[in-house]
């Protein structure tokens, strides 16, 4: 078989940096959607823990370590973000979950960007209707919301946010974010924002 080179949807476009904010791409080895069947959530948690992972997070929350993170991703849906990668790493959903939950490999369906820096929150305020101040949207919080008319999943990181969009709108989202970064940086230079 031909050995194809995988490219991310944002290949060569990131990182993008302005004064006060950096936008970079994050590449997860595997993204798996977990949708527990009705009444099977406890069994799914038992299975996840047996595999050495964390239990499913509560609504609007993140669980697990950075390398193997579980995020709430909407009604009845969770995403497992696994940083491991390489040829030996199998992204096929685990058959042990067959009776417990609908699992599907979403690795190439989503693009994850990281927005960090002192003005990250001001950048998002231009595009997103949520209150993302640190006292409200805290570490471990995740939200499904709107970013410039696109559906996104975003969660707080120690120095900023991770923003997840479907691959088809990756470049639009990136351009809207970098545009907002330019705008915030320019206003800061002009002294219009402190």
């Amino acid at each position, binding site marked *: 078989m031909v050995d194809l080179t995988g490219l991310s949807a944002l290949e060569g476009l990131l990182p993008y940096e302005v004064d006060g904010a950096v936008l970079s791409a994050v590449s997860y080895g595997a993204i798996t959607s977990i949708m527990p069947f009705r009444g099977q959530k406890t069994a799914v948690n038992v299975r996840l823990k047996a595999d050495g992972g964390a239990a499913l997070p509560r*609504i*609007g929350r993140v669980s697990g370590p950075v390398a193997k993170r579980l995020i709430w991703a*909407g*009604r009845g*849906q969770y995403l497992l973000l696994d940083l491991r990668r390489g040829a030996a790493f199998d992204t096929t959903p685990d058959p042990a979950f067959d009776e417990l939950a609908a699992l599907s490999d979403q690795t190439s369906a989503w693009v994850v960007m990281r927005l960090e820096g002192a003005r990250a929150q001001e950048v998002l305020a231009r595009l997103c*209707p*949520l209150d993302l101040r640190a006292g409200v949207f805290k570490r471990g919080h995740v*939200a*499904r*919301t*709107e970013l410039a*008319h*696109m*559906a996104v999943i975003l969660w707080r990181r120690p120095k900023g946010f991770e923003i997840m969009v479907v691959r088809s709108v990756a470049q639009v989202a990136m351009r809207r974010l970098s545009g907002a970064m330019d705008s915030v940086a320019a206003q800061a230079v002009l002294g219009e924002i402190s």
Partner: protein
Amino acid sequence: MRLKCPLCGDRDAREFHYRGAAKLMERPEAGAGEAAFYDYVYLRENPVGANSELWFHELGCRAWLCVSRDVSSHEILSVELADAVKRGQA
């Protein structure tokens, strides 16, 4: 206008898609006859005051919601998960 999604909390109306009267949840049985389906598909109440509606949290958690809204004032009286309402009925 804001809707308080039972999963996500208070969210701006732009995150939601309005589907129509909550009557859409009460689909007649297959053999219910033409009159029942005519009523289900075409006939709607037109109240002044509280109206039961179906909204979809499209740019959010993707849950269908049963919303009671005062159509004169746009006041949101209640928001429940459509799934919970439907199962409560069953």
